[in-house]
C-alpha cells in the first residue's frame, strides 16, 4: 500500500506536553477510486482532505499521531474487500475512509463490522449502508441515494413538475433510485408517464431519450450514475430536451460531473447535494485552501472525508483511546459541528444528519467563473433530508 508519509512528529508533540494529553497513534486508510470514473470525485482529493483535517485539528499538539495511507479499489468490491481485510489484519489500520461505489462500500462495511473497526463512508451512495446493511461500525457521512432522489424529486414536484419520465440504469442501484423517486413523485401528486431501462454501462442513449422526449413528460429524470449520467445528459442536450421545455433532473450528479459536462450542456439540470464550495464564507475559505493543493474545487465527497476525520479525531481526543466500540459510541453521542456541513448529528443507524441543498445548474451567461456552477434553489432542513430512522429496516433500531 502506498504510504503517503504523513507522519506528525511525536517530538514536536512532546514539547507541547500539557493537560489532557491523549497520546494515541491512529492509522487511517483512504480507500477509493484513484484511477477510474470516481477519481475526480474522490481520489487523491480525499487523501488531501483527510490530511487537511489532521492539520486543522492540530492533532499532534493534542497528542494524537495520525498516519494516513491510501489505496485504489478500482471500484471493485473484491479488490476493496481484499485491501480492507489486509489493512485491518496486517497494517493496523483503525478506520477506513471514503470508499465510493456502493458495492465496494458494502463490502468494506461488512469487513469493518467483522473486525470491529470504524468505517467512515463519504463516497458510497447506497442508502442500504444505514438500512438493510447497517452496522454498528459504519458512519455514512456525506450523502445517500435516498437523500438525493428525494431531495430532487420532491422539490421538482413541488415546483409543478408533475409528469415524470425515468431513464434508469438497468441494475439494482438504478432501479432502487427509480423506485425511491417514484414514491416521492406519487406522494406529491405527480405521475410517472413512463420509464425506460438502459443497459449498464451504456454509451448510446438516443433511443431512450427520443422516447423520453415524445412521452409528453414535463420532467426527465436520470436514475443512473457516473459515466452514464454524463453521457445521457450530454445526449439529452444534443436532442434539445431542455430546449423543448422538459426539465432535466439528475438523481445522482456531483459538481465534478457538471464541471466536466460544462454549463452549456448541463444548464437547467436540477440536483441535490450536501455540500457546495460556494455556500458561505467558511466553505469558500476551506475550498480555496483545498484548491491550492489540488487545483480544483472540492466535491462533497472530499468535504465529507474532511469533516468525518475531524469528528473522529474529536472523539479520540475526548476518550484518549482509539478503541472502536468506544469511539463509535462517543461519535454518536457528540453532536457534529464543522465548518463544511454545519451542525448535525450521527443517528443510531450510522446515518450522519445535516442539511442538503437543491441546486439548479447555471446558464453559461450567469456563471462568473470556471467553478461557478449552481444556483441555490432551496435548502432542505436536516430533519427532512434523510430517510426517517424507522423506514430503513436497520436491525440496530428497535
Amino acid at each position, binding site marked *: 500500500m502506498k504510504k503517503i508519509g504523513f507522519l506528525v512528529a511525536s517530538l514536536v508533540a512532546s514539547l507541547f506536553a500539557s493537560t489532557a494529553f491523549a497520546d494515541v497513534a491512529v492509522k487511517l486508510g483512504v480507500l477509493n477510486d484513484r484511477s477510474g470514473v470516481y477519481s475526480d470525485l474522490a481520489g487523491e482529493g480525499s487523501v488531501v482532505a483527510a490530511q487537511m483535517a489532521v492539520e486543522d485539528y492540530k492533532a499532534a499538539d493534542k497528542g494524537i499521531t495520525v498516519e494516513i495511507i491510501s489505496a*485504489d479499489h478500482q471500484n471493485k468490491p473484491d*479488490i476493496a474487500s481484499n485491501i480492507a481485510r489486509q489493512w485491518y489484519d496486517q497494517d493496523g489500520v483503525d478506520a477506513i475512509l471514503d470508499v465510493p461505489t456502493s458495492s465496494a462500500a458494502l463490502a468494506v462495511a461488512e469487513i469493518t463490522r467483522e473486525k470491529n473497526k470504524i468505517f467512515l463512508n463519504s463516497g458510497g451512495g447506497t442508502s442500504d449502508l444505514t438500512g438493510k446493511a447497517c452496522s454498528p461500525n459504519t458512519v455514512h457521512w456525506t450523502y445517500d441515494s435516498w437523500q438525493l432522489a428525494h431531495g430532487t424529486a420532491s422539490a421538482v414536484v413541488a415546483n409543478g413538475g408533475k409528469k415524470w419520465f425515468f431513464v434508469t440504469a438497468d441494475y439494482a442501484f438504478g432501479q432502487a433510485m427509480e423506485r425511491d423517486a417514484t414514491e416521492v413523485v406519487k406522494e406529491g401528486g405527480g405521475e410517472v408517464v413512463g420509464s425506460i431501462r438502459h443497459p449498464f454501462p451504456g454509451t448510446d442513449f438516443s433511443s431512450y431519450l427520443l422516447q423520453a422526449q415524445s412521452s409528453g413528460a414535463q420532467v426527465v429524470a436520470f436514475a443512473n450514475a457516473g459515466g452514464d449520467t454524463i453521457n445521457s445528459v450530454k445526449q439529452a442536450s444534443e436532442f434539445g430536451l431542455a430546449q423543448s421545455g422538459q426539465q432535466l433532473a439528475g438523481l445522482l450528479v456531483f459538481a465534478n460531473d457538471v464541471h466536466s459536462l460544462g454549463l452549456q450542456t448541463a444548464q437547467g439540470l436540477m440536483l441535490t447535494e450536501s455540500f457546495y464550495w460556494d455556500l458561505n464564507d467558511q466553505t469558500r475559505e476551506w475550498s480555496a485552501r483545498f484548491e491550492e493543493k489540488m487545483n480544483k474545487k472540492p466535491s462533497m465527497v472530499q468535504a465529507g472525508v474532511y469533516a468525518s476525520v475531524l469528528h473522529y479525531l474529536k472523539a479520540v481526543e475526548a476518550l484518549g483511546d482509539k478503541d472502536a466500540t468506544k469511539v463509535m459510541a462517543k461519535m454518536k453521542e457528540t453532536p457534529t459541528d464543522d465548518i463544511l456541513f454545519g451542525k448535525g448529528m450521527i443517528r443510531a443507524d450510522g446515518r450522519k444528519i445535516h442539511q442538503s441543498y437543491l441546486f439548479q445548474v447555471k446558464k453559461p451567461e450567469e456563471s462568473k467563473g470556471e467553478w461557478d456552477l449552481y444556483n441555490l434553489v432551496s435548502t432542505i432542513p436536516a430533519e427532512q433530508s434523510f430517510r426517517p430512522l424507522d423506514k430503513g429496516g436497520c436491525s440496530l433500531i428497535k
Partner: protein
Amino acid sequence: MTAITDTNESTIVVEQASGSMPRHHLVIFALLLLLSLAAPFFLYPVFLMKVMCFALFACALNLLLGFGGLLSFGHAAFFGSAAYVSAHAARVWGLTPEVAIILGTLSAAVLGAVIGLLAIRRQGIYFAMVTLAFAQMVYFAALQAPFTGGEDGIQNVPRGDLFGAISMRSDFSLYFVVLVITFGGLLAIYRIIHSPFGQVLKAIRENEPRAISLGYRVNSYKLTVFVLSATFAGLAGATKAIVFQLASLTDVYWTMSGEVVLMVLLGGMGTVFGPLVGAAVIVTMQNYLASFGAWVTIIQGCIFVISVMLFREGIVGVIAKWIRKPL
C-alpha cells in the same frame, strides 16, 4: 533465441512421462506441500488463499488449453457462476461451506456441459469466440438475475463451519481447508493428464485428423475435457467465494477469462507446474502493485508482451527446457 523454436518442444517431453509419477515431480509436489504448510506462518493467509484459488483456476484452464489444445476465452463463466452458486448456498440457504462448494462446482460442471456441447463443434478462433459469447451471456445473467445482487454481488457470505463442526472463521483454519482443496484438485488434474485419457487428448491436440483416423471419438474427448476443466474452474471459484465471502461481477467478467489465460501462458502452457507459477506471479503483482491502480493492467500487458517475445514457453517451460526434464 528461444522464441524461434517450436513451442511444442517442451510439451512433447511431458508426454513421455506417463505411468507412475517421475521422481522429480514427486520431489516438486513434496516441496510445494512443505512450502504451503509453512507459508501461512510467514505470509498473509488471505493472500496465500487467493494465490491458491487462482492457481487451481489456472490449472483447470491449462488442462483444456495446454493438454486439450482448446483456447477457451470464457472460463470466467464457470469460475464466476460457481462462485455465485456457492455464495448463495452458503448465505441464503445456510448450507455448510463444503456443501456450498460442491454445489457450486456441480453447477459449473453442468454449465460446462451445456456450453461445451455447443462450443466444441467449432475450432480455433471460432471456439474461443463461442466460449466468450457464452461467458458474456453468463455475465449478463449475473448482472440481471435477482439473486446475484447486480453490481453489489453477493456479499457477507458466511464462512460457516466445516462439516457443521469446525469453525472456519479464522484465516488459519480456512487456509488449510483451501490447501486441501487446491492440492486435491492439482493432483486430480495431474492424474487426468497422465492417464490414457490424457494421452489421447494430447494426440488430438497434436493432430486431430490422425486421431479421428485412429478411431477415437474426438468430440466426446473434447467435451469430456471441457467439462472437467469447467468443473475444476468451478471448484476454484466456489472456494474463492467462501474465502473472500464475496461473489461479484469481477468473477464473471471477460477480463477474468483473459487474466487466467495470461496466468497459464506466463507460467507455461502445457506444463504441470506452470499455471501455479503464473498464478502466483500475477496475483502477487496485483496485490503489491495495487496502489498503482489501473497501471496494474498495463504492467500485466507489458509482461505478457515480453513473455511472448522472449520466452514463449512460459517461465516453467523455459526452466523445463534448461533442465531437459518435463515439469
